[in-house]
């Protein structure tokens, strides 16, 4: 498998504070890599290192096979586009003028493709409106359009849906999926909005305290997100007694409710409870959310789920 980005024990320290602590990750080509972590986990710091805004204090970073210490890294960065934190644009220019400026900076011979880009990000009807007067969603889309100038293979988006309304979130999501499917662009998205990321990402990297806790692809994550049965019974004490006999994993929620992990036949549970004079009132199947998965992951030492 080819990797667009590889980091090996990457460290970044600001005076006495370690933002990244030996971070090792691999972004496969063609993936939508969801970079998940709490606020202050080190997501933006890593993105800054990838983009060359800052230099690592330890470890190494390889982009398209080129190490960050290599003089050719600047050339390798030409294959990527990024929106770091907030989109960077010239506020006194409209969308088309901003893109023309970006094209000129990249040394592209003509302005062909600007109209297509504007159509892609749905900014083709903004006319002469200055970028400083755009809504937040429009600014985000302009930032993505600027990142797409020069046809990059690798797109880095740092929390692109922050502050957007639901429609804006949907638009960005559809845009990212379109870019990945139609143009085969590898996308690295950092976010702490897990529900949204779960609709996009093909691979996940969970970061906490400057370290990757786990890297996993979407299929494996789906399997690992455990199914459980939410049961309502007349007596959870009796329920617990029965489950202990069966060797089942469970958690008591209240006097009448409990969650049962694993796969069991309803008839077996019902019969076992009946033997203890406990009635089964209701039973519903649930799947563990990405949110719970992440919270369990970073809440533990990181070694429980493998």
């Amino acid at each position: 498998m080819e990797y667009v980005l590889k980091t090996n024990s990457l460290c970044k320290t600001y005076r006495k504070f370690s933002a990244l602590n030996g971070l090792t990750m691999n972004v496969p080509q063609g993936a939508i890599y969801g970079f998940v972590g709490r606020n202050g986990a080190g997501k933006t710091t890593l993105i800054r290192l990838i983009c060359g805004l800052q230099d690592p204090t330890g470890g190494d970073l390889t982009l398209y096979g080129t190490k960050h210490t290599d003089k050719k890294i600047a050339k390798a960065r030409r294959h990527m586009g990024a929106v770091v934190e907030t989109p960077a644009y010239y506020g006194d220019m409209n969308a088309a003028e901003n893109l023309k400026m970006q094209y000129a900076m990249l040394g592209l011979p003509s302005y062909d493709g600007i109209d297509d880009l504007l159509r892609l990000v749905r900014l083709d009807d903004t006319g002469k409106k200055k970028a400083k007067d755009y809504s937040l969603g429009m600014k985000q889309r302009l930032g993505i359009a600027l990142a797409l100038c020069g046809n990059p293979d690798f797109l880095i988006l740092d929390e692109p849906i922050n502050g957007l309304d639901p429609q804006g979130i949907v638009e960005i999501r559809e845009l990212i999926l379109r870019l990945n499917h139609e143009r085969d662009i590898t996308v690295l998205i950092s976010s702490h909005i897990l529900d949204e990321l779960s609709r996009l990402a093909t691979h996940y990297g969970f970061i906490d305290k400057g370290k990757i806790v786990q890297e996993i692809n979407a299929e494996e994550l789906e399997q690992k997100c455990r199914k459980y049965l939410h049961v309502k019974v007349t007596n959870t004490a009796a329920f617990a007694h029965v489950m202990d006999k069966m060797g089942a994993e469970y958690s008591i929620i209240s006097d009448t409710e409990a969650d049962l992990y694993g796969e069991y036949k309803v008839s077996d549970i019902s019969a076992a409870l009946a033997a203890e004079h406990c009635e089964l009132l209701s039973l519903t199947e649930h799947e563990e959310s990405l949110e719970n998965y992440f919270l369990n992951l970073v809440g533990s030492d990181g070694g429980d789920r493998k």
Partner: protein
Amino acid sequence: MRNLFRIHFKRFLFRWEAIAVSLINIFLGIFSAIFIPEMYTDAFSGSEYFYPALYLTSLSVTMSSVIMMESNSLNNGTIRNQLIAGYTKLQVYLSKYITDFIYGIMQGILMMWMLPFSGIADNCSLLFAVSLILVYGAVSCIVMTFCILSDRRATSVLICIACLFTLMLGGINIAKRLDTQKYIYESSRDHETVVKTENLFYIDSPIRDVFEQAVRLNPMQPIYEYILWYLPRDEFYYTPNVTRMDYDPVYNLQWTQIEAEYQRHIGRLNVFPIYQICFIVAVCTVGVTIFRKRDLK
């Protein structure tokens, strides 16, 4: 890097701020060329300071425009796009530095191009005129360096302005110290003999040599030298009374010292451009070194 230059020139030179400052400098240049020669008729009027005031006004306006335009370009984060696009920090810094330098030089030329037609400073050598224009370039470069290196823009700009004033006032004081003569001459009561006493305020080498270099290195020094040595004053000050030189030995010796001082200043004035360029290169080197190590957001 050519593309970066193109971007910076376009963003810098065609902004309304740059156009407005250019028009102000053209106006100041024309105004000073037409009206100031009329004012230099009376050495006691103090009008010889009017042109320097206009020059300093023009310099301040130019400096302010650099601060405004650079702060804007740094606040909107577009410098990030340049790094992400594959340019190195060295390229980004150099392209901005050179653009600002050229902008400063342009403003200096717009302010001073009318001088040859005005009759002010007819004796001004071409090299010294270049150094006066280089002051604009040096100031633009210093201001740009402060803007790009500091997170606290307002504070850094105030520090920058304070540094430039310190350079100017410091340079004036050091030059005055250098001009202090080694001996004070007094005539005896009968005007027959000269009494020579050592001047206690005279600074001896090696400190004198250090001061001399400091004056040469100071990028603001041409302003003071211009006021002192190139602005026209009444002939009373610059032409010795030949008759008096015959009978007053003290006057004779004093004029000898003034002439020696004048020669020394003229000799120094012509090397200013070299030192100014060295200063500009040194600031660039320091700025690039710091900028490359900075963690950008």
